[in-house]
């Protein structure tokens, strides 16, 4: 592992600084752009609107940049690095709130910076504050952890089926449309329409991701895994136009050049103490247990939603009408499980924590079942006349519901569904509802 001159440390630190600065400044731009889009779409909450205003984001980006530049200028500047990391964290959080999801390509600089700072903490505690040998290992470790997590997620959320190649086919088709406009498109089309090739790419992707921790175990495995991950990114770029330049640069820097375990840079200190084998083994065992429990917890959450999707919508007590009133019409028996009806498709997120688990047609409308932590609720959208009303009714249509969910928890999904139908149906909602229902019936046969 001792394969890299110690004076490369400043180069790595400055490269990391440069990427951090670019990401800090990019965040300011991306937040502005996401803010405009969210304002236009009406999805920006007042708090997010306030937090994403440039009066706040630009100073944060500026302060983070100043801190990052300070970090890059000399070894051991822990507080400067923390300032830059805090800036990235604040801007990333604001951006995720405004956009609706985090942008992962902007995480790699923060990862490596965090790992670097953890290493500085260790050497600082050992009386060598400018020694960056641990810092470089810390960066490599967290970079490895990111890819390892990506590999775990594919196995946890999909399992071996991910290796079939279908996810790669789906991503390429939805990112590119297979439009014939050049030699790269020929390559994409060939890869996507040749199942064995798509499968090979899937296996290689998961294999290199799960092998990422090997980058901590020697020069050769580090180079092999880093090259494999770089090839994966290059292939993603060729097939989908998605460029992860930050992670590619960091893989070259920390994976191919690599950290160099070395004596203290100042050459004055005694060799650092290392945790004894029993203490290390105990720490590894505890962290492995914690990681396994955390992954299992997320897998269970995911499986619960998937299981709810697989179940047919269960009839429940009517809560929309007076107690004596009949429940809204139940959906007909499912002949062929539909995955999409009108603007609803199974798996679609309708409101935070609420996603569609089933769709169907009713006697004169369509139904959609939403599942969330509070339980399940089935909505029926119909333009048929009724003596009953629901709080989510639109001028042209009723939105009835049957629910096992407490009334207090119904409002977020109810309002979100109402807005979704209003947007999708527009001024001709009832005509569209008829068309959605007819299309669903035709699909179901």
């Amino acid at each position, binding site marked *: 592992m*001792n394969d890299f001159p110690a004076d490369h440390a400043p180069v790595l630190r400055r490269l990391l600084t440069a990427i951090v600065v670019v990401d800090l400044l990019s965040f300011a731009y991306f937040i502005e752009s996401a803010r405009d889009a969210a304002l236009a779409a009406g999805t920006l909450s007042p708090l997010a609107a306030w937090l994403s205003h440039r009066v706040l984001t630009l100073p944060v980006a500026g302060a983070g940049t100043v801190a990052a530049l300070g970090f890059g200028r000399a070894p051991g500047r822990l507080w400067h690095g923390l300032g830059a990391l805090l800036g990235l964290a604040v801007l990333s959080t604001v951006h995720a709130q405004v956009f609706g999801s985090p942008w992962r390509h902007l995480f790699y600089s923060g990862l490596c910076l965090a790992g670097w700072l953890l290493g500085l903490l260790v050497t600082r505690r050992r009386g060598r504050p400018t020694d960056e040998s641990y810092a470089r290992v810390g960066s490599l470790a967290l970079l490895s952890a990111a890819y390892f997590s990506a590999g775990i997620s594919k196995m946890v959320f999909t399992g071996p*089926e991910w290796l079939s190649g*279908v996810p790669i086919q789906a991503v390429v*088709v*939805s990112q*590119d449309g297979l439009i014939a406009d050049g030699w790269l498109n020929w390559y994409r089309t060939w890869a996507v329409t040749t199942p064995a090739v798509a499968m090979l790419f899937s296996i290689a992707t998961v294999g290199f991701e799960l092998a990422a921790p090997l980058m901590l175990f020697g020069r050769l495995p580090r180079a092999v895994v880093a090259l494999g991950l770089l090839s994966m990114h290059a292939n993603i770029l060729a097939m989908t136009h998605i460029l992860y330049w930050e992670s590619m640069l960091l893989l070259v820097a920390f994976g191919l050049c690599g950290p160099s375990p070395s004596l203290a840079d100042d050459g004055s200190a005694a060799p650092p103490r290392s945790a004894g084998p029993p203490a*290390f083994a105990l720490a590894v065992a505890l962290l492995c247990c914690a990681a396994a429990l955390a992954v299992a917890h997320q897998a269970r959450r995911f499986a619960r939603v998937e299981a709810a999707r697989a179940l047919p919508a269960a009839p429940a007590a009517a809560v929309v009408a007076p107690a004596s009133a009949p429940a809204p019409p139940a959906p007909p028996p499912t002949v062929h499980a539909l995955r999409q009806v009108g603007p609803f498709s199974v798996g679609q997120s309708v409101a935070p924590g609420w996603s569609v688990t089933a769709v169907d047609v009713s006697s004169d409308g369509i139904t959609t079942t939403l599942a969330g932590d509070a339980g399940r609720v089935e909505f029926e959208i119909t333009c048929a006349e009724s003596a009953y009303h629901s709080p989510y009714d639109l001028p042209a249509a009723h939105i009835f519901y049957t629910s096992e969910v407490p009334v207090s928890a119904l409002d977020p999904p109810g309002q979100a569904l109402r807005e979704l139908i209003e947007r999708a149906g527009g001024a001709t909602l009832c005509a569209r509802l008829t068309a959605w229902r007819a299309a669903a019936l035709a699909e179901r046969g």
Partner: protein
Amino acid sequence: MRPLSEVGSAYLYRGGLTIRLSQRRFGVLCLLGYVALAWSVRFDMRLGDQIASLVYPLDTFSMYGRMPGRDSSYALLRDRQGRTYRVTDFSSFDCAEPVAGANAQCTDRRGIPYHDEEMAEYIRLHHGAGQLDVELVARTWTLHTGAAPQLDSDCIIAHCKVAP
């Protein structure tokens, strides 16, 4: 690093091993700690469930971890001969129907939402006269394990006149 002459070889050997092992152990603990923390808490957000960890830079990088639906769509332009183009291949659009919003067609099969938003924004910003008649369509493929994607349908979003 100190030159070899400054330290005894036995010390360097022992010290070097200690450092290597110590750094590797540190790296392993960092990695495991990150995985445990990143996976422990996952928040739902507007664009998906279990999509964000506790704090930056923690994440599980699960963006492509889930199996896609059985179909996949992409918005493109189709001329009368059936040739297809990217929206960005043209710089002037005059569309007869809305391409976004409540009155737009094919809202249920537009593919990746942010692509759809970018496409609508591009057309809005490049409004102008055109000569070539095209249809803006949401093209859908169905996906099956072990087979090539099958072209399923084109849903017409709008009829447009475009110019390069």
